[in-house]
């Protein structure tokens, strides 16, 4: 009896699959003209506003002549690998990872800017308990700093903060880094396993639970230059689909401009999409024209070289280009 039921059940499933596949196929055939798809990863941190969601919600991708396909969450450290492997066409995350990837042989090109550090919206904050005695860079020496990984902004932001205030050649070893798995930073801080934690963006939830303060952020160290997190494509994708790349760049810069003017609505868009409360979505400041500033790339290329994360200097013209950005072309013509 059971066996019969099971086989009936599988028959139904197979039938459904065939119908679904056929429906999918016919739908694809019907849409004319066919837009070039761009596969975009979903946001790994749902509480941080993601411009592709906004551009998608506003219909900017179709308006510009491309189609966004969201492919699921990818951990920050795997974005470059996912794009190189061809499972995604676009990657994001902080520029230092992209530079390291390109220096390591990934054939990528950065094409459009996203968020950037402002005084109000820093890329990274370093947080201590309110009772902590850490006030200026001198107090950092001998302390334990919890971060989710070393290298890149996690590691070099406190180094440069220390260097800025204290005249030392090499800030390495003046304090201790402790690797804490993602999601466990707050526990580590509150159990006093570490004295300071480095987090990306402003952790509203930690502050809501209280008892913590910001010791410094990346704006204190580099002003606007430090926190750029632009989008990049695989080079062969760019070669094959330059128009799709242009469309993506336009859609993102328009979404950036719109978000800066409509923060509240942008929050609602993302909250609806990911089933959150709008107040849970953190909004940053976005580069309205999408133009990548050379200094934001150069600074990280220099830092990565200085601290030995990359072995040879990287020519930053290999890392980024503004040639797909209409705003940059307009500017150049003026």
């Amino acid at each position, binding site marked *: 009896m059971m066996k019969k039921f099971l086989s009936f059940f599988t028959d139904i499933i197979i039938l459904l699959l065939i119908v679904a596949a056929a429906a999918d196929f016919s739908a694809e055939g019907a849409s004319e003209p066919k837009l070039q798809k761009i596969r975009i990863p979903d946001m790994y941190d749902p509480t941080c506003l993601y411009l592709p969601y906004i551009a998608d919600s506003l219909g900017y991708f179709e308006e510009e002549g491309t189609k966004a396909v969201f492919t699921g969450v990818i951990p920050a450290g795997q974005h470059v690998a996912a794009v190189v492997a061809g499972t995604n066409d676009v990657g994001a995350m902080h520029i230092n990872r992209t530079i*390291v990837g390109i220096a390591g042989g*990934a054939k990528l090109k950065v094409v459009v800017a996203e968020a950037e550090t402002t005084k109000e919206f820093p890329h990274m904050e370093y947080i201590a308990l309110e009772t902590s005695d850490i006030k200026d860079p001198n107090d950092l020496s001998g302390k334990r700093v919890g971060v989710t990984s*070393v*290298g890149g902004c996690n590691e070099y932001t406190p180094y440069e903060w220390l260097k800025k205030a204290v005249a030392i050649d090499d800030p390495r070893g003046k304090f201790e880094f402790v690797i804490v798995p993602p999601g466990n930073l707050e526990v*580590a801080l509150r159990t006093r*396993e*570490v004295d300071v934690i480095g987090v990306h963006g402003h952790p509203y939830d930690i502050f809501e639970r209280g008892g913590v303060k910001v010791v410094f952020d990346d704006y204190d160290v580099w002003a606007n230059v430090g926190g750029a997190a632009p989008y990049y494509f695989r080079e062969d994708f760019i070669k094959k689909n330059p128009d799709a790349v242009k469309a993506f760049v336009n859609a993102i810069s328009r979404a950036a401009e719109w978000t800066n003017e409509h923060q509240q609505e942008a929050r609602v868009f993302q909250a609806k999409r990911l089933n959150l409360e709008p107040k849970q979505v953190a909004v940053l400041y976005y580069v309205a024209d999408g133009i990548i500033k050379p200094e934001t790339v150069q600074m990280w290329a220099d830092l990565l070289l200085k601290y030995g994360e990359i072995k040879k200097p990287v020519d930053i013209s290999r890392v980024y280009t503004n040639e797909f950005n209409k705003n940059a072309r307009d500017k150049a013509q003026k």
Partner: protein
Amino acid sequence: MTAKLKSLYTKSIAVVLFFVLWDSLARFGLVDTFLLPTVTSMAEAAWEMMKTGELFIHIALSLKRTGLGFLVAICVSVPLGILMGWFQKLEEYLDPLLQIFRNTSVLALFPVFILVFGLGEVSKSAIVFWGCMWPSLLNTISGVKGVDPLLIKSARSMGISVPILFQKVILPAALPEIMTGIRLSAGVAVIILVAAEMLGATRGLGYFIFYAQQKYAIPDMYAGIVTISILGVLINFLLVKLENHIAAWKRYQV
């Protein structure tokens, strides 16, 4: 001699073919070398780290952490398993709890480990301990429970005391299964190492792999991964040798 050669061939051919396949995939551009480097560039990276001694520092620390966690786990799980296998009531009471523990992911328990053990060396060994406990515990229980009752009854009818019964009958009979459990635990120990060394480490093979991945130092990362595999194979090999040694002793006894 030829027999030896033949056995060497049988044992190594699959491994050699695997590495040849891997290398040619990367070498002939079938996959991007950024994602999968050639075997030679991985070996080069490993050689560089051996020359600077860096690799051995990582290996030594990792062995210390896993060794400690593993040994403590065995010292707890084997006696506990014998007790639970012998006193069936005890097993009935404890088994549901143990099943829950066994099926709880180590990774998901990170906050608990931080809370209880902090971020130091203890928590890393504690994670290995946690992962190692279950295979050897469950195998020991089933090994002791599975001893032929006829053997026990006949030993008892000869008026044997309980300690001697354990020493002469139960342990030797349960030993093969206990050893299998220990080997499984050792395998788990090496695998869990990577997870354990994500917790507040700045050295060790697990940390090194994680760090190389973050830096996109892909040949280094594979060098670390293969080193862990080799360590695991070596440890298993040693345990099999030990098992054969003990099993030989058992054969003479029976």
